[in-house]
């Protein structure tokens, strides 16, 4: 159990590749931190620097209260679970879990105790005498976790541990890992490119892009208040809609105007727009698909948020449906209740929930609100 502090961490490779730039993060004891971002953004590199598999080019890595940049990986007291775990095929589950402890010459009684405790936590006590061949995919994954647990490390590092599992098992193991975290009361640092995994598992999420941290916050905060265009587009499925346009002022009324659409900005937002000098400037409006509605009650609440769109495709998803629409050449997606009778080719009146609106500066791509 430990706090981790990453302070101005850089990773440079030969040939001018900077994989990680000025990474700053304080991880609390027992926290579940998720690093998420597109391929090549530096998630694995960051994790590998924490593990010690990769040298830190610059900056300080502190575990507990000790700077560990130069501490050999196996003395950092952390355990790592990898994407491709190979259980030792000729050993039983027990031997697999005991292997690392035996290697470190732990006394036999201690090994027995730790393996049984871990097996109990993972609910695989009845499998201890089996060989990996005779286990299901989920059971194997649990044994792989067990091998890390018996070491009783200060922190667990996991790099896409679920990406080789099929979709159903992945969802199941996601919950298992969250439960495991609660039971073990240890710091977890988890890497994934899957934003759903990040949103459902993390206490806090670190969104990365091109080696830079974009935002660090709770899943809710990230979802509701993305700091910039990238985070807004990366988190959420289907992705947030973006429309390019301008903020216009007419007789004290501010509106967002783009090709074929004009929305009145609520008064509560005027001040921040003025403060940021966004008026008469190109901006990008962001609205999540579930914040576009077709029920008339929304039109009454937000008369300034009504617009019309051509429906190109309708996808039924059970309790809800997705509308893929075109507003003067800009593609929009709406996620509405399935009761609606909107059909392909219709031009319905839709309403944007103006309290859920986002505006981004087009130039800096930073969020204005």
């Amino acid at each position, binding site marked *: 159990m430990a706090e981790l502090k990453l302070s101005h961490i850089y990773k440079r490779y*030969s*040939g001018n*590749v900077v994989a990680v730039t000025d990474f700053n993060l304080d991880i609390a004891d027992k926290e579940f931190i998720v690093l998420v971002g*597109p*391929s*090549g953004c530096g998630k694995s590199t960051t994790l590998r620097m924490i*593990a*010690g*598999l990769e040298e830190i080019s610059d900056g300080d890595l502190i575990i507990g209260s000790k700077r560990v940049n130069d501490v*050999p*990986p*196996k003395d950092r007291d952390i*355990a*790592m679970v*990898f994407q*491709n*775990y*190979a259980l*030792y*095929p*000729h*050993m039983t589950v027990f*031997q697999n879990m005991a*292997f*690392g402890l*035996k*290697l470190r010459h732990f006394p036999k009684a201690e090994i027995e105790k730790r393996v049984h405790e871990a097996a109990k936590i993972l609910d695989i006590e009845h499998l201890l005498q089996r060989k990996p061949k005779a286990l299901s995919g989920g059971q194997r994954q649990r044994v792989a976790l067990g*091998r*890390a647990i018996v070491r009783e490390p200060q922190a667990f590092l996991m790099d896409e541990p679920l990406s080789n599992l099929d979709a159903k098992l992945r969802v199941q193991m996601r919950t298992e890992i969250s439960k495991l975290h609660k039971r073990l009361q240890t710091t977890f640092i988890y890497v994934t*490119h899957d934003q759903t995994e990040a949103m459902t598992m993390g206490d806090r999420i670190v969104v990365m892009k091109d080696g830079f941290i974009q935002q660090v916050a709770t899943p809710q905060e990230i979802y509701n208040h993305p700091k910039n265009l990238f985070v807004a587009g990366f988190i959420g499925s289907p992705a947030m809609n973006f429309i390019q346009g301008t903020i216009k002022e007419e007789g004290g009324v501010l509106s967002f105007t783009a090709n074929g659409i004009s929305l009145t900005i609520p008064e509560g937002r005027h001040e921040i727009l003025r403060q940021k000098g966004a008026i008469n400037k190109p901006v990008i409006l962001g609205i999540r698909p579930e914040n576009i509605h077709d029920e008339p009650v929304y039109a009454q609440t937000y008369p300034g948020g009504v617009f019309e769109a051509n429906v190109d495709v309708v996808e039924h998803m059970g309790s809800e449906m997705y509308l893929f629409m075109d507003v003067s050449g800009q593609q929009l997606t709406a996620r509405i209740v399935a009761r609606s009778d909107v059909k392909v080719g219709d031009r319905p009146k839709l309403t944007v929930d103006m309290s859920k609106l986002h505006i981004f500066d087009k130039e800096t791509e930073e969020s204005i609100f």
Partner: protein
Amino acid sequence: MIHLDTLSRTVDQRIRFVHQLPIEVRKIPLAELLEGYVYQEEVWHAFRTQRGVLYGIYQEHKLSHREIALIELLLLDYEESANRKLERWQQELIDAIHLPIEAYSERTKIEDLDAIHVPFAFPIVTIGLRPKDRQQASHFINEIKGIIASFAEGFDLTYHVVVEPTFVVCIIEWTEESKTLELSAETIASSIVDGMLREAFLEVRAVYAQEILDFNALVQTVRRMLFLALAAEGFQMEQPVIAIDGLGIHELLYSALPTLKKQYGLRVLPEEATKLLGVELEQTVMTFVENDLNMSETARQLYLHRNSLLYRIERIKEVTGYDIRRFSDAATVWAALLFHREGFR
């Protein structure tokens, strides 16, 4: 100190010792060989020693029970001298590794082969192991021995290790018994690599070869394994476990002369081009080639929209003149990228 020929002299040359059995005899379970198995009018006898199994052949009825017991007794003495011999065969392998590797050569020649006694019986399986990061060599040596020892115990197989600071060869006797364990050289290699990563946090690359039948083949295999490990390292290949014949075209590219690599690499991808395109170039081309030039699969793996991938491909074409949707262009750029990775060494 009793050598095998001395041993043989003790019983009037009525027994000779071999390390290699004819295929037919190799199929016989060890238990039967320990009893003495008759093949082509000769008795093939296995003697269990501390270092493995040693095979002796004698004509039926020419050795008495007492003589066999005597040999078994003397073999214990032989064990003592085996250490010296161990150094000798180990030296042969180390010398082989140190021959220059322009390309591994079939010509590797070893004089006086018959005189070398090896402390294990053929056939064998070999696994060559090398740290991915050479700076970790000292950790590597310290850790790998422990890991291999723990595995050998688990596998219940005989193992021997030849040590070079950055290259360790693990030799496993491949008896009938080991075959029944449903193990393969590949699974053992993967397990060792995985064990090193998880237990020692060291990344290791392994090259494995199955069923080596004699010492000459062993020496050549060891040389080839090192060559492949170096090629995989130079080209920064991701796969940590490589079959002895599993590197395909990389092998040929790696043996090209450095001057040629440089000329080619810089002609196809001049510095301006690589600078302009940045990391996207390598990421796009490598993933595209790995996925057989399949756009959708590549886009999926890079978490890109198909159109963004298309844009990247067009941009590469604009800057380099190569359209990587064509096989020959893709291969050309891919090879140049490998040479860039390697730094034209």
